[in-house]
């Protein structure tokens, strides 16, 4: 064995059919806790469907679906404390919902309204990050702030497999390791970075092993197994909270959707490949498990579907009924105090919007 070689563990609890193949963690003893997880997974999937429908009918901007990957951010968020800080990329709708971002805020954001980032719930959470991987250093800064203030809080940063090729990721992980900051880094390895498959993204056997170079523990987890994700996250968060430093978790899943609504994945991957991954998606296995314990039945499922569906519909209607911000809003948050030339430009823009020639 090469000196320093470290095996990367792969964590799983449920198999694709919902059969228990690992050790059930403590929190699963309460079936209501599992239903809570299942509920947000369903809500996220329904939000996703609605968002795509709105985009296809010209009522939402370009949207990044989380289809098939819901368990990662939901599991991560479920393991977090409310006072922790979430630093997402752009497919973490489920985790955002768990943490109290509202459906209406999600619709507003993807509908092109900055107010969608003014979360009423998790006030310190970061907004989405489109420039891939550039938010990973922010999570280190947030975690450093916690450490400097002696707070037992943790920042959790999620990003895709493509982001692990970025310098930002390498720099941030390295800094996190040196400073032993309370941060947990989560890779949503969904196999594709738009059209570039995982095999062309890195020659590394796992992405989790990138942690080793930074002196961090790295583990893999079945990204479709929300129980396993939450369990791995709880361990990593607890480590961080105890001052034992950051971790990297690679959640292995599959992007069942296009990259975004602007993408057509059939240009670069076979539908057959996608079909192959459908049976492993995260909702079915948790539902099967819940049913197998006798805690879930068709009636409960229908009640849940109805509840989630009406929530999503209501939020969509509220979003659609929300008027766009006035033109002045594009000037009002550039600086704390508006410089004179910006005030002049603002006055011109306001006058033009009011029909001035």
């Amino acid at each position, binding site marked *: 064995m090469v000196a320093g070689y470290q095996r990367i563990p792969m964590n799983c609890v449920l198999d694709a059919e919902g059969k228990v193949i690992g050790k059930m963690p403590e929190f699963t003893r309460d079936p209501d806790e599992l239903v809570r997880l299942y509920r947000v997974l369903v809500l996220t999937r329904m939000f996703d469907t609605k968002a795509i429908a709105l985009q296809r009918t010209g009522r939402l901007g370009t949207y990044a679906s989380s289809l098939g990957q819901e368990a990662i951010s939901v599991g991560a968020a479920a393991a977090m404390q409310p006072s922790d*800080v979430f*630093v997402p990329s752009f497919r973490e709708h489920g985790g955002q919902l768990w943490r109290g971002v509202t459906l209406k805020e999600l619709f507003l954001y993807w509908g092109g309204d*900055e*107010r969608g*980032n*003014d*979360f009423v719930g998790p*006030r*310190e959470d*970061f*907004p989405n990050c489109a*420039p891939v991987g*550039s*938010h*990973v*250093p*922010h*999570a*280190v*800064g*947030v*975690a*450093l*702030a*916690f450490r*400097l203030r002696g707070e037992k809080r943790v*920042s959790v940063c999620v990003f895709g497999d493509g982001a692990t090729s970025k*310098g*930002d990721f390498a*720099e*941030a992980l*390295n*800094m996190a390791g*040196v*400073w032993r900051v309370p941060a947990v880094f989560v890779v949503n390895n969904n196999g594709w970075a738009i059209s570039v498959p995982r095999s062309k993204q890195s020659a590394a056997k796992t992405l989790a092993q990138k942690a080793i170079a930074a002196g961090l523990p790295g583990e893999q987890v079945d990204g479709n197994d929300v129980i396993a994700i939450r369990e791995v996250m709880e361990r990593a968060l607890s480590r961080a909270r105890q001052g034992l430093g950051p971790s990297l978790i690679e959640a292995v899943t599959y992007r069942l959707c296009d990259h975004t609504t602007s993408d057509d994945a059939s240009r670069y991957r076979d539908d057959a490949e996608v079909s192959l991954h459908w049976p492993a998606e995260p909702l079915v296995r948790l539902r099967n498990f819940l049913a197998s314990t006798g805690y879930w039945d068709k009636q409960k499922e229908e009640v849940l579907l109805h509840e989630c569906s009406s929530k999503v519909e209501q939020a969509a209607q509220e979003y659609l009924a929300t008027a766009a911000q006035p033109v002045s*809003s594009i000037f009002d*948050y*550039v*600086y*704390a*105090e508006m*410089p*004179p*030339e*910006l005030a002049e430009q603002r006055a011109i823009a306001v006058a033009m919007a009011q029909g001035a020639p």
Partner: protein
Amino acid sequence: MSELSLVQAVNAALKRAMSEDASVVVLGEDVGIDGGVFRATEGLFEVFGGERVLDTPIAEASIAGVSIGLAAQGFRPVAEIQFTGFAYACIDQIINHASRLRTRTRGRLTCPMVLRSPAGGGIQAVEHHSESPEAMFAHIPGVKVVMPSSPARAYGLLLSAIRDPDPVVFLEPTRLYRAARGEVVDDGAGIPLGRCITLRPGRDVTIVSWGAMIKEALDTADQLAANNIDAEVIDVATLKPLDRVTILDSVERTGRLIIVHEAPMTCGFGAEIAACVAGRAITSLLAPVERVTGYDTMMPYLRTEGHYMPSVGAILTAVQRTMAYT
């Protein structure tokens, strides 16, 4: 009151800010025990400790990125980028995040950080160590850009930059770090950002500059005085947001404008000032606006650096052309 060099004034401002406000932290390469390669952070590590004076790994993009995370959490990070040539790695973080965190979140998260870096040439440095990137930063909405030109102004402007609620890029003229000493009153008084500073009043011609070139501008004004030409010298000090009023008032009185900067001419910040004057004071102009700047070339290596730098001679020639214009 004491005589300090510009780098000592920066040091005094950092010390003052850290003493006054526990949320001020300093981070960067070699800023700790070494006190920074230019000694700007000298003694801070000993006084405030490694928790507030953080040596970073060599990772400029993340020095900026980590500062953003700290700032969003209510800290006031002052990040040092060792040389301007290395600051370009931070531009992604500054443009995509620091500058727009307030806008994107409708003011929920803000970014009160300072990115300090030595800037400019004339110190016979190795390549990539003498650039003047102020116009690039000034083009970014949401960012403030400051360039001091004396120890006292470095002290007061840096204090204001650290106390500012928005991200500030603070470019310190390397050539002035130790070149001249000046009186600095370490009383914690800031110099307001967003205001030009008229260093020398004059009737005949306005010379506008910033950073190290203020020395050439003032030397030129001295020589012009011997020829009975009365030059007004304005230190822009804060490039963004630009105090247009002071410049326009001056040009309306003198009718002649010379802009001096070390950075290349094309799309240099002088173009912004010239456009402002053309747009709002063209009828006051008695002669075309002159720009005395670096060339649109790479910053040359040290043996030919002198040919690149705007000189008193070049400024004098421009003034004479302006004065002779009919």
